[in-house]
């Protein structure tokens, strides 16, 4: 389904919502308000906790902080090396995005637009990777990284994450690209485009929403990943954000107020990412939801 059709459908829904009666609208808004509170409450609690002292947290778990402790943020930033770990996470995430997008788009293009004997075999071979949980592969992955001397390497970590993102991305993009009308491609060929030009100038721009969806999924997966990062990275200055956040949970004592401050800081790149790409993200997600 093209993006014009989707926008039309969304507008139709908006119109139909306006037609409902006043009572029904009150019920809808009340329901939506409850949903918003449910979503916002944990976030607010996180912010309030990040501004309390440990003793205040014990005595007053749910209330507002009496005197906001901004020092929790300073301590989390300094002690938890948040700046460094955010940069490290960004590096591995960007590598993951680049590798995932390049490989998934090219594989999906070939599999969706060309007919050849092993097409389906290769497709299933790639997507079967979705069935391998990362936990089942940690020991062979670790040995591979060790033998190839790829430990303590954020770029290599990005490659590993990408390897686990490719199957799902190909699964999504291949069906997305299949839905692009063949006539567009044929017109391009008549106009003198080769395979490469058709891919770059026709297929890729039309798949933009789908690509954004796989980018979002890749970001979500590797920004929060702990197990592989923990195994592949040993050096204290080459660790990613989730490992850094775990640092606030000690063997015997946990700094929960500083952990919450760290979590608020960790949320910021995601919020900025969302603020910058809000429209495209929503479009990308809805394309995935109602593609036909």
């Amino acid at each position, binding site marked *: 389904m093209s993006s014009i059709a989707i926008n039309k459908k969304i507008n139709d829904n908006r119109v139909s919502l306006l037609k409902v009666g006043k009572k029904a609208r009150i019920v809808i808004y009340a329901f939506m308000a409850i949903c918003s509170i449910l979503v916002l409450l944990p976030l607010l609690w996180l912010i309030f906790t990040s501004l309390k002292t*440990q003793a205040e947290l*014990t005595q007053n778990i749910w209330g507002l902080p009496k005197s906001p402790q901004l020092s929790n943020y300073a301590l989390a930033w300094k002690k938890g090396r948040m700046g460094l770990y955010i940069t490290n996470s960004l590096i591995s995430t960007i590598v993951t995005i680049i590798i995932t997008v390049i490989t998934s788009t090219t594989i999906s293009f070939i599999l969706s637009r060309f007919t050849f004997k092993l097409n389906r075999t290769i497709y299933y071979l790639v997507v079967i990777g979705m069935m391998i949980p990362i936990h089942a592969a940690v020991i062979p992955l*670790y040995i591979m990284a060790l033998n190839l001397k790829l430990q303590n390497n954020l770029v290599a970590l990005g490659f590993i994450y990408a390897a686990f993102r490719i199957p799902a991305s190909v699964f999504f993009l291949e069906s997305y690209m299949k839905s692009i009308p063949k006539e567009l491609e044929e017109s391009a060929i008549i106009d003198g485009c080769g395979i490469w030009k058709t891919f770059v100038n026709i297929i890729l721009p039309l798949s933009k929403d789908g690509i954004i969806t796989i980018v979002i999924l890749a970001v979500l997966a590797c920004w929060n990943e702990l197990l592989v990062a923990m195994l592949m990275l040993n050096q204290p200055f080459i660790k990613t954000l989730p490992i850094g956040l775990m640092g606030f949970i*000690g063997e*015997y004592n946990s700094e929960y107020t500083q952990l919450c401050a760290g979590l608020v800081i960790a949320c910021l790149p995601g919020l900025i990412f969302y603020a910058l790409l809000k429209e495209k993200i929503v479009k990308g997600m809805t394309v995935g939801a109602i593609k036909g």
Partner: protein
Amino acid sequence: MAKKQLLKLLAVMLVLVLCVASFAACSQSSDDQEGKPEPAEDPKDDGKEPAEKPQDPGKKLTIRYMSPATAGTPQAEILEELIKEFEDENPNITLVHDALPSAELRTKITVEMAADNPPHASWCILSYAREFMRDDKIIDWKTVYDDPNHKEFKEWFDDKTLEFSAYKDGRLMMAPYEASIDGLFYNTEIFEKYGWEPPKTFDDLIDIAKKCREQGIYAIVTGGKDMRFAWMASALLVRAIGIEKATELAMGDAITKWNDPEYGFPQAMEKFKELVDAEAFPPGTVGLSATEADQMFARGEAAMYYEGQWKPGNFLTAGGDDFIKKVRRVNFPAMTDMPEGDPDACVGGTIVGTIVTSNKPEEEIQAAIEWVKVISSPAYYIPSTETGQNLYAGKAEYDRTKPPEVINQLYDAFQSAPRFIPSMDAFAPPAVDLAIKKTAMPGILSGELTLEAAIAEVQKAAEEYAKTLE
């Protein structure tokens, strides 16, 4: 057509090359093995002289040390300073500190041991060290203690502490790290307010549980979500059947007798059920994190808290200075109706320590031992004791006016304890420990499992573990 065929051929070749490369990287070829350093041999077997300090002072060595002293903890700051001093004193050694919370550390070291690439030295718990020693992955500390180059270990620790980690064949698995001892911590303010005495017997404990309910509070709180039942499981077991039979059950020939009353576990669980039936624990304990439990104790919603010597540090965090001054410790109560039980043994001992892996070159092993000496020294642990965070296992004295009184009580209890039984997570095989603290005790607590079903779950885990030994 020819161009298309060529492309197909290239694609097939590319796939083949990728497959071969992947398999080559996955497999541990014999060449790789040859390239790796030989495991260090036991000097007692080959009659070599005791090893000297790092042999080639000019050679650069990198030692990796794994510990749970993560960046935000007070221990991490002390450790960072010690690392700096160690590197200044040994300019040819670079020490990489890989800090992870203990649960993640256990996962990582297990994977690294399996992949034959463990750190040079690591924090470790007794039950994991036993598995590594069984597979000859770690060094025998006996030879180190007998080495005049490392005489400090005998100066700092007595023989009982040094030999805490004896493997069944007499080898020693770990160097001492910290002192572990249990405590039934109680809030003196609550006890004084109602005129109660700390419980001496299990019947007293049940009685206090009932009195607590009358006052609208609970007797004991614990972090069920974090599976904090390992210490209570050991306490109940040793009070029910004594150390010898408990040891036989957890580590000896009776490993598959968890449902046999002769080895005490059914009675221990029966006592636990008595506590549950007396409403000693607050509802929803299974879902409480350890921090939430600490907070409940600090708010006076529970009168007692049972676990290990690190808890005062948590109570200080949760309740501040005023609260920690009110906390005192007693032994877990005796069971008067259990004639075979040991009323005086404490849970703890030296159940965590530092392992050094054996598959490294000799000079790296020696450098790792030198580092372990630093973290076993009073310089590392005394500050932790004085700030009320933890206890030193060695003989060095500390300033008793600095920590809260409950730390002094714990230290005295550790020094005077007649016998120790390790906590279940350091004692029983990991699978059995998990069955106890993840399934059996939470099951009884939540009412999801009957007593018999809970014991059967543990028995099943033990039988499955025993099969792996065959």
